[in-house]
Every structure is written in structure tokens, then in C-alpha cells.
């Protein structure tokens, strides 16, 4: 999924970003509350990890602004403030989960997945398409029962297509979901990645992923 980390401590921000990237997520990160709001307005994230004490605009305000503007992206607050009032306030302004520092890394990862699943009410994480099996939770792709090696970016594109089956995903949506905010890929780059993805999942005849020329891609 595409995650935004809002944490003012640069070192924690970087290490969190690295851990989440290792988990196969596409991660943007900012250290300022105002920058977070700007990014959230521009890009549709799947989840936001939000610190409370931030320069510019604090985490409560960021969450409030998001909810006021109708952004439903799940928010996981990650903060050193652990008192009950602070937690309650976090939930009041629209947080979906609240994790107090220092946290357990496996717990953080599990909670991120759980919140994402709960908010998007995803029932099944395993999707079967012809001889292709995709486990969205474990991030594993099986082709004819054999595991296929896939980069996080390609998996992200596949995941977006699967989660939005029947809908056309435009170049912009794909770029927004699977590239970091600083990257800004051209449609050629996306086309090249799609070619790679088709090769990885063995879809040379374009049976699984349909090209809607000039618009984007779709999985039926």
C-alpha cells in the first residue's frame, strides 16, 4: 500500500520508512505537519502514520483537516504522548489506531495491516485469476503454484489493479499509488513497468491486464 509517514524526527522517519519499504510498501515521508496536508491533498494514500508533536501543524490538526475535507484514509497515530486523554483526543479527531513510542516493530506492522483491512473491509486477501494466485497480505504471487519473484513496485501496480477490479486505473492513479511523491514518473515509465509486470506474471497475451489505450489499465 501507499503510506505517508509524518514524523518530525528525521532518524526515526528514515528508519520507519526503510522498515515499511522492506515490508513492500510505497512510502512517502515528511517532517512537517503543513507538508503532510499538502501531500494528502495531492495524493491518495492508503494509510498515514502521524506523529502528534510536529512543527508547522500538529498531528491532531492534520487529522482534523483530513477528516474535514472528507479524506477517509486510515490514520495511525504514532506518538510519545501516551496518556488516556491524549489517546482519546487522537480518536476524537479521527485517528483509527494509536501507538505509543517506543513500539514493537512487528506490532506496528500488524496494526497497520489490520487498520487498512478494517477500513477497507477487505474479506479475502487471496485472489485467484486463472493460474495466478495473489496473496495481498503476505505479498506473495504464485504462478501455476510456483512462487514468482516480484519487486514492491510491480506488486503495488498489481495490487491496485486487483483491488479495483473492473475499473480503469489511469496513469495518474498508478503513478500516485506506486511511485513516491518526489519521483513523478512519465507514462513511458509506467508503460515499461506494466510490460515488466506482464512478463513476471506471464501475461504476454494481455489476457489478465487489459490496456485501455490512452487511458490506463484494467483487470476484469
Amino acid at each position, binding site marked *: 500500500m501507499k503510506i505517508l509517514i509524518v514524523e518530525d524526527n528525521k*532518524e526515526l522517519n528514515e*528508519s*520507519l520508512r526503510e*522498515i515499511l519499504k522492506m515490508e513492500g510498501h510505497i512510502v512517502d515521508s515528511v517532517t512537517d505537519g503543513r507538508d503532510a496536508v499538502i501531500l494528502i491533498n495531492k495524493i491518495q494514500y492508503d494509510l498515514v502514520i502521524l506523529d502528534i508533536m510536529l512543527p508547522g501543524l500538529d498531528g491532531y490538526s492534520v487529522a482534523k483537516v483530513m477528516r474535514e475535507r472528507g479524506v477517509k484514509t486510515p490514520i495511525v497515530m504514532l506518538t*510519545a504522548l*501516551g496518556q*488516556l486523554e491524549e489517546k482519546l483526543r487522537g480518536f476524537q479527531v479521527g485517528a483509527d489506531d494509536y501507538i505509543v*513510542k*517506543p513500539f514493537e*516493530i512487528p506490532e506496528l506492522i500488524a496494526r497497520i495491516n489490520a487498520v487498512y483491512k478494517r477500513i477497507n473491509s477487505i474479506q479475502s486477501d487471496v485472489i485467484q485469476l486463472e493460474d495466478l494466485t495473489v496473496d495481498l497480505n503476505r505479498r506473495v504471487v504464485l504462478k501455476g503454484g510456483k512462487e514468482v519473484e516480484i519487486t514492491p513496485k510491480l506488486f503495488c501496480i498489481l495490487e491496485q489493479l486487483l483491488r479495483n477490479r473492473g475499473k480503469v486505473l489511469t496513469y495518474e492513479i498508478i503513478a500516485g499509488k506506486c511511485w513516491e511523491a518526489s519521483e513523478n514518473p512519465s507514462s513511458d515509465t509506467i508503460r515499461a513497468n506494466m510490460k515488466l509486470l506482464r512478463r513476471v506474471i506471464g501475461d504476454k497475451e494481455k489476457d489478465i491486464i487489459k490496456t485501455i489505450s490512452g487511458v490506463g489499465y484494467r483487470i476484469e
Partner: protein
Amino acid sequence: MSKELDEFHSLRLKIVLFIQFLIFLVLSIMSYSVYLSYKNQRIAEIQENNKTIYLDILQLIDSEGVNLKKLINYNLPNNTTVCIADRANTVCIKNEDNFISFSKQSTKLEEESYIIYSNNSRAYSIVVATSTKEMRKELKKLRFSILFSDILVLGLSGFLAYSVFGRLLEPIKRSRDKLNQILQIISHDIRTPISIIDTNLYLLKVKSGIKSKNLDNIEKNVKYIKALLKNIGYLNEKPSNKREEININNIIKEILERFNPLIQQKRLTVIVEEKDNPVLKGDYVDFDILFSNLIDNAIKYSYDGGRVEIEIDGKSISITNTGPQIADKDKVFKKYYREESSGTIPGIGVGLSIVKKICNNYNLKVDVYSENGLNRFTIRP
């Protein structure tokens, strides 16, 4: 913070109550003696008056008998009855609203309500009796005023003691609050750095795949600091209202799994006796912290190669370890208290105070037993 306030409030109240009790005692003794001496003085006064009247009446009796004329004119005080009797007759006089009434029969006097002076030594026997009605009224007034002033004094001294001890205890309370505050600030400020160490350690281990004793040591100590921070954070936490069903056996199993590295390091034998499968209602986090603290203590204060026994039955959960005796079984639950024998064992003395706090919140009883090289903490619903 509220717990802290309560502690001081109760200490203040205890001191004030004790002082009030002392003042009450002194006041009671003083009031009673004042009352008694006044009463005795009044009785003596009346008796003296009676004697004077007796002597006056005696003057009215001459060789021919009682001089009735003089007797009627005699200025007898109110409430006083005089009876004169010879062998055959009795005459009584009484001043009722400045009118002397006569009666030939002897007036029946109830002894309790009269103070009587009599003398039978002559041919006539003369009895002077003064009713104590007036005196009793006075004494009643006196009792009321003594009681009223006692209550006033008690109230005033209570108020004074309460405010004085509030002031006297203020610096102690302030320094405790300050200590608490500093602890919270420090713990808050190291939360992010510890998270950074923790996440980077995780990355280092995953990325490099190095299995090294040094990394394990760092990890172990980061875990310890994290547990400590959890406890410090919990000190100021308000009691939870969450009531979910919690299986004690499962929670203890989970905790023991977490402590497994420490258990192995100290070569401890851990025995869990599950005689029952009790379910308690509460917040999972609270019970996790409660039993984690007890098990952590049992491990920390156990001798190397010692034994930790956990017994779960329907009525109680007890955690026993082999270790040095606990010197003060009441104080171990006090915040920041550490036994001298704790020595270099890490800790800041908050674990058991948190245990007590959680137990209080759930109306659980916690007992300590420490004898014959065994320390046992028992939790009873």
C-alpha cells in the same frame, strides 16, 4: 497525579484526626472537671444557705413553742421548704411567689431534687430543704455552653491543623510532584530516541543478517528500557473502564514466553501449576502489566539457578520465587521504594506500586509472603 494527591490528602487527614483526638481528650477532661467543681460549689452554697435558715428558724423557737407570727414573716427564699416537728405535730412552710403557705402534714420531699439540712438533736426537729430545680437549670445551661464551646474549639483547631499541615506538607508534596513530573518528562524525551535505536537495530539485524552476541545484548537492554518506559507511562494513567474477559492462564503463558530469554539466562526453573482456568474481567493491558511486573520481579529477585512457581487456582493466583527475604512487606508497594537488598538489580521502584494500583482498580487483594528463602505474591479476586 490524582493518586499522589490522595496519598497526601490521607496523610494530612490522618495527622489532623490524631491531633483532633488529643484535643478532644484534653477538652473532655477539662470540661468535666470545670462542670464538677461548679456543681460542688453550688451544692455547698445551698447547703450553707440552708444552715443559715436553720439557725434563723431556731431563733424563732422559744420556750413556749414555735412563734408562728414570726415564722410567717420570716423571709424564706424561693424553692425552700422548712418543716418543724415536735413529738405530736409537724408544720411546714414554703415560699411560693412571696406567699408563705402552711401545711400541717409533712410535705413529701423527693430526696433527689432537694438539698436538705436537718437537725433532730433538740425537742423540735427542723428540716430545711431547698429544691435543686434552679440549680439543675443552671447546670443544664452550663453543660450546653461547655459543649458549645468545646465544639467550637474542636472545629477551630481542626481547621487550623488542617491548613497548617497542608502548608507543612506542601513542600513534600511539591517535591514528589516534581519528581513525578521530571520522570515523565525524561521518559517522554527518551521515547523517540529509544524508538530510533530500536528501529535501526531491527534494520541492522534484518539487513545484515548478522547474529551477534553484541546485537543481542543491545536488543535485550532496549527491551528493558522499553518495559521501564511502559511502567513509568502507566504510573500516571487513569484507571481503565474496559471490561473484557481475560483468561489468566493464557496471559501468564504469553508473559512467560516474553521473559524466556531472561529465564534461560538466569537458569531458572519455572513451574506453572494450573489447577483451574479463571477468567477475570478487565482491560487486557492492565492485566498484562500486572502479571508482567510480578513475573519480572520474581525473575529479577531470584537467585541464579533458582525456582519460580506460578500457581493458578479458582481463588487465587500466586507467584513464588526463591530469593532474599523482603525486609518490609508493607513498604514494597510504595512508589519509588526499593529494598536495600535490591543492590544492583535494575529498577526504580515503581513496579509493585503499579501492581497495587491495578489491584485497587479491580478490587483485587494482593498479599506478600516472605519467609524461608521464598517470596510469594498472591492475587485474590
